[in-house]
């Protein structure tokens, strides 16, 4: 299992990504969208950290900033003791051989004019891999993701959605990485095909010892694939814990509302099910609420002035179940 005493593979501290909103002739930045606004987490070798939240919470931006597909505005990203933000071009390319990104829509990220073989061979060539037998390696990769060798001369449009996502995974794996950021890897797929791709990702993880950052909005699926789960709201992590602990005993009122809102595929007892329905929409990340970003929608009975003025820190069991709420259930230690 995961050795939490070992060094984390990835350590993120105080990560911020602010996008400027420009206006006027001089395109001056008048305001900033605080898409990611101070995020901390660790991922240990071989584990899957699930990152969940609703649209606009910053989960995708976090995944991109970690791999520097987007340059972070502030914060510290360490990968295997390496300062990712300090890497120059050449070092960044070497880093990308170890850490790869899989996109939600594989069709949008596959070149329609390149056959599958040409695409995979190109990636290998760019990274100086595969030697003279790049085509053999490409066939190997196809088989690794459950496609057939004869698929090598086909073009992306000839594949179904599930097969395209397999291609996206094959491309990511071509450089033999240790770490994948998977951004909604199955949300565009039908449920029966989703299961195929999820099983493939789990098999590959076991076989190749991969570490995953699994970004998704489907809470049941994230519970299924993840060792630990982080919940984001308005650019911040509001709760992070072992999957079982987070789903059984959520401590943050937002997590509780989110979990209670998930429709369950079982009608038995549905009338008795307690559901916390939040009022209103998520506020704008341009001008997030002061204090706790969740306070305007928070249904917690103990909500008070402190929630409006002080930003809660992620607190709880050291290294275990953490939540950013001033009113965590009693029995939870808060170290202030």
């Amino acid at each position, binding site marked *: 299992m995961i050795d939490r005493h070992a060094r984390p593979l990835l350590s993120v501290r105080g990560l911020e990504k602010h996008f400027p909103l420009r206006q006027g002739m001089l395109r001056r930045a008048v305001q900033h969208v605080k898409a990611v606004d101070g995020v901390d987490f660790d991922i240990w070798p071989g584990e899957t950290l699930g990152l969940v939240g609703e649209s606009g919470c910053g989960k995708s931006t976090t995944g991109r900033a970690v791999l520097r597909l987007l340059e972070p505005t502030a914060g510290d990203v360490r990968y295997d003791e390496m300062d990712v933000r300090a890497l120059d071009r050449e070092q960044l390319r070497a880093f990308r051989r170890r850490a790869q990104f899989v996109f939600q829509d594989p069709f949008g990220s596959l070149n329609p004019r390149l056959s599958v073989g040409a695409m995979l061979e190109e990636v290998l060539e760019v990274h100086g891999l595969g030697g003279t037998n790049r085509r053999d390696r490409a066939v190997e990769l196809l088989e690794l993701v459950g496609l057939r060798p004869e698929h090598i001369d086909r073009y992306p449009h000839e594949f179904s959605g599930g097969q395209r996502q397999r291609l996206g995974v094959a491309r990511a794996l071509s450089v033999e990485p240790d770490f994948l950021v998977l951004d909604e890897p199955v949300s565009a797929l039908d449920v029966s095909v989703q299961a195929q791709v999820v099983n493939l990702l789990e098999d590959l993880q076991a076989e190749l010892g991969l570490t995953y950052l699994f970004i998704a909005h489907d809470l049941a699926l994230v519970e299924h694939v993840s060792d630990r789960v982080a919940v984001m709201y308005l650019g911040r992590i509001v709760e992070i814990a072992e999957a079982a602990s987070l789903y059984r005993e959520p401590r943050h009122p937002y997590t509780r509302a989110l979990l209670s809102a998930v429709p369950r595929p079982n009608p038995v007892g549905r009338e008795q099910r307690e559901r916390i329905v*939040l009022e209103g929409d998520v506020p704008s990340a341009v001008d997030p609420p002061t204090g706790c970003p969740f306070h305007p929608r928070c249904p917690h009975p103990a909500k008070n002035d402190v929630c409006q003025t002080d930003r809660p820190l992620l607190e709880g069991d050291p290294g275990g179940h953490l939540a950013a709420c001033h009113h965590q259930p009693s029995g939870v230690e808060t170290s202030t």
Partner: protein
Amino acid sequence: MSAESAPPLLAVRDLRTWFFTDQGVAKAVDGISFDVREGETLGIVGESGCGKTVTSLSILGLLPQPPARIMEGSSIRLRGEELISCGERRMRSLRGNDISMIFQEPMSSLNPVYKVGDQISEALRLHRGMDRKTARAEVVRLLDEVGLSEPERRVDEYPHQLSGGMRQRVMIAMALSCEPGLLIADEPTTALDVTIQAQILELLAALREKFGMAVLLITHDLGVVAEVCDRVVVMYAGQIVETGSVYEIFTEPAHPYTRGLLDSLPSVEDPGKRLDSIPGTVPNPIDWPDGCRFRARCPLATDGCERPQELIELSAEGRGARCWRAPSRLEPAGAAS
């Protein structure tokens, strides 16, 4: 359950909607029959390409013909009135007055250059003959009814000024404006976040209770079906493969496809358990397989499955499965009901 003895609100019989394309004839909906009873919520569930949306558009008369054609022998009756042959003028009057609809993407169903209030009041003035002032007051009341905050202000806003959840509320207000007997909701919450989805589902349930309208809910989301539907129709490859009450479908699925769909979902009791996937992909509507259309992907396929499959009635209450192997395994449950 007084609804069960009453004649159905909507009766669809042997509906075949085919598309005549350059590549061939796509039999998107290929002989389906079902009823929607007064006041109930019927779910049509299936994966992309199964024909569920073409079914809803056929009922509404909103398919471009050609390339679509509703084939000879198909029948769609609303309170006994045949919709297929009733003509565009009559259909337009029924849409809005008797049947309303909401779609997945409220942004594309709302006109971006008109204020939301004007779009709703258009329906009121057209269908209910209200004057401008009365209509505006009614719009404010409707927006309030669907839980939109500050309805007096929203009336004068444009669709882009609203969030996704608010836009869907506007669509629902518009659909309700003429108090229809049947609301067709095609993936109404698919584009929404889960907390907003919960708000909209709760709103639909409350309105249904209040106005007693029937809802035909079309979705791929089994969770949503389990939460809100009374009865369920499962579609695969243009056909209905299973029908039953929501409890029957989820607790004792009779068709291997329904079972496969449910098993592809993460288990609530044992979340880490490996998912059972359905191998292969959905076949091409231009060339449906002979015999049972699910045969190539079915774990139970055997000799006999190459014959075309009929929807076998498993109970008098509308329970059925298109699988010749289903009834024998269902006997205990069938006998109990």
